[in-house]
């Protein structure tokens, strides 16, 4: 049986792409935790993160935040 040639490894562009994605994800997570960016479904509710624009209580009393699917 002929020897199988070795796997050439992960291409460089995939490694660079992975690094970029990791950095972007870490940035978004960091910014979300320090509250400088509104992010996540909770940002439109009264208990949303501190930096976000919060709906006036008059609206929030009338409209509950969306849950689950539509309809």
């Amino acid at each position, binding site marked *: 049986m002929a020897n199988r*040639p070795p796997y050439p490894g992960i291409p460089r562009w995939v490694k660079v792409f992975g690094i970029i994605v990791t950095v972007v994800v870490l940035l978004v997570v960091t910014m979300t935790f320090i509250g400088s960016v509104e992010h996540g479904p909770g940002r*439109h509710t009264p208990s949303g993160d501190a930096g976000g*624009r919060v*709906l006036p209580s008059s*609206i929030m009393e009338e*409209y509950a935040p969306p849950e689950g699917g*539509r309809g």
Partner: protein
Amino acid sequence: MIMTSRLRKFALAAHITLAVGWIGAVAGYIALDVAAATSQDAQTLRAAYLAMEVIAWYVIVPLALASLLSGLVMSVGTKWGLFRHYWVLISLLLTIIATVVLVVETQTISHFADIAADPTTSGDDLGALGSTLVHSAGGTVVLLVILVLNVYKPRGMTRYGWRKQQEERRNKEFG
């Protein structure tokens, strides 16, 4: 199962139409999103939120799901496969992530539209709703990355793809 040439061309045309249509629909949505983020006019805000919901539910979500489905058909029905090449695998993962985030975000959009549809909601309250610009702009970047990957098809096989290729070569050589 590899598709015939005629079927492959039809599937490719459908996939390109759906995927590029998704990007175009998001571009239209962003125009409304910018209006929602910047306008102070109650009528503009109300119209923008209502139109955003219609575009999201009836254009963007169907195009996203159809693009994902047609992409799966193209991968499985051609020599590229689904897990053999990094560009296909990464495109698939990004498309799934973009679709999931989109479906979650439509809940927020519907919530905004429900508030905007109420004639008693004041202009100030509408102005306080905010926008979904972070997601729509981020989604556009992801879609453009997928587009570039699909056009350039950068080289690079996964370990699974490499093994399959070697097996096929060996089968050809030894019958």
